[in-house]
């Protein structure tokens, strides 16, 4: 039997709006993945530490406070510092189109904006996990 895909769903920063994160977490579970949801107010350090400890295949982060420009790249930096390059990282939330190129530049594989279908997120993770 195939190993189940493990995904860390995380809310970086101080924002408490977690409707999107929770809906995505549940949809991923319904799609047969193992999901770890961190809860609110995770620092980039905590997210990276949990991802490594839980040996996840993917990290899905959600932000709508506008802090993505700092927090997403910080997670990528910390992953690089720890020598991790086999975790697929995706992001979602209220993220202006013009910010997306810079986020992809630093290694976020895809950004899912408002109105994304959870089935698209599921498919993307299935097709792009690295290990």
């Amino acid at each position, binding site marked *: 039997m195939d190993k189940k895909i493990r995904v860390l769903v995380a809310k970086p920063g*101080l924002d408490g*709006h977690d409707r999107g994160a*929770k809906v995505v977490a549940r949809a991923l579970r319904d799609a047969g993945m193992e999901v770890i949801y961190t809860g609110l*107010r995770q620092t980039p350090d905590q997210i990276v530490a949990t991802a490594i400890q839980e040996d996840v295949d993917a990290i899905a982060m959600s932000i709508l406070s506008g*802090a993505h420009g700092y927090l997403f790249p910080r997670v990528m930096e910390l992953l690089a510092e720890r020598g991790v390059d086999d975790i697929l990282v995706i992001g979602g939330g209220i993220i202006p*189109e013009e910010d997306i190129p810079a986020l992809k530049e630093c290694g976020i594989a895809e950004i899912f904006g*408002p*109105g994304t279908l959870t089935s698209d997120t599921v498919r993307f993770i299935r097709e792009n996990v690295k290990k």
Partner: protein
Amino acid sequence: MAELQKEDLKIAHSRWRGVTYTKVVSKFPERKARFEGSSGIEVEPLYTPFDTENTDYLENIGYPGEFPFTRGVQPTMYRGRFWTMRQYAGFATAEESNRRYKYLLDQGQTGLSVAFDLPTQIGYDSDNALSLGEVGKVGVAIDSLADMEILFGGIPLDKVSTSMTINAPASVLLAMYIAVAEKQGVTADQLDGTIQNDILKEYAARGTYIFPPKPSMRLITNIFEYCSKSVPKWNTISISGYHIREAGATAVQEVAFTLADGIAYVQAAVDAGLAVDDFAPRLSFFFNAHNDLFEEVAKFRAARRLWAKVMRDRFGAKNPKSMMLRFHTQTAGCTLTAQQPDNNVVRVAMQALAAVLGGTQSLHTNSRDEALALPSQDSVRIALRTQQIIAYESGVADTVDPMAGSYYVESLTDKIEAAAAGYIKRIDEMGGAAAAIERGFIQNEIEESAYKYQMELESSDRVVVGLNKFQITEAPPKGLLKVDPAVGEQQRAKLAALRGRRDGAAVGVALDALRQAASGSDNLMPYIIDAVKAYATLGEICDTLRGVFGEYKPQAAY
């Protein structure tokens, strides 16, 4: 209705249903097998006098300005004056937000509504490590009284009413507001406005908490008590269903969970020894206006009636003002789409109409670009104009509660009230709202509804125009508001300068006194006001309280 006439109507009704309607449906089936609102209440093809025949008009509908306030809390409603048009705004620094407020007041806005950034909402100074990336983003950064002085510079606080969306550190921001007013020569008894100050919905739906429930409830009842004596016109809490709805709740759940939270606050204050009629007239509410026009109107009417009964029958309130549910409304941010953002102007107009038909006391209309970024100045103006068009052009404000007597709306009002009362009973059995939140009941109910909504969207059972139907290919939007990343740096520099020039010894004395008071049972407001006036920072004050109260840790998610 005379008996004979009623008989005739009944015969006509069963003929219509059995023959006229059935004949057409058998040939041309309806669009859906079952029509229902967000709460799963079935919508019938037609409503007739039979749907409201058991209603006792005086007991359940009554007259505006009188119990049970179903038709509104004031006898004249908008014939006297329109609702307060209050756009929620604030971003970046106090200087920039102050400019936006002056612009909005010039455009005819009649009250201010302050958005604070997340560090401020959680009681961290801008130079805290956890504040990195967040300073000035979703609202204005306030570190100390010095920032508040700039925020309200040139704005006469005896003339405008100010609503502040602040919860866990509400006591600190209220203290700063009182201190700024004093410097303007405005006394606390002249101040008019609202602090949100609703911690239970933070644990249940929004996540911006600091302290555990018990000390949080103490801070809230301290504010009730302090204001009832010193800031009598201040709305001491805005019990908020808005965020509960945004997190995914249905209309019924919004009413039920909000009123259950309200009951918990009233109970806490009564338990602390306050007389219900001393503080209850200053309680206010905050609701969402979602898409389903009639369900929303009925929701507001049901909430008013249910609260009036709770206050009279459960808490023995005598003053009619204690039984009035007065509320602010905001249109539903979660219904706005990033796709074809101009469509949001239309959604907001209909939601605002529902709020006005439902009898709101003040209204915030969302801006069309909010699913993309913070609203630009042009978008905020259109949103405000939407309210002005409803007020001045549509005529809906010319008579009180124009939807009353609609067979459909009255029937829906009854059903929403009954369903919400059922939820409140279940929550009572669990030991009240705080206990229901602690065991995750309210959060789970909201999550279920959010997931159901999303699945309906994905299966196209629920159509969102421009999102899952009538899509077009679009170019990325232009002109979005962007907060300058330099704001964090500026704010940290301002804070360092403040720490350098203030009287450090006085700050220490004030914070020590606050620490001692927090360990005892004194009302904390006077101590917080002293600390604020000494220019202790928000972070220092909250850290002092964290030292005594500890921090709230939610159960591990999964």
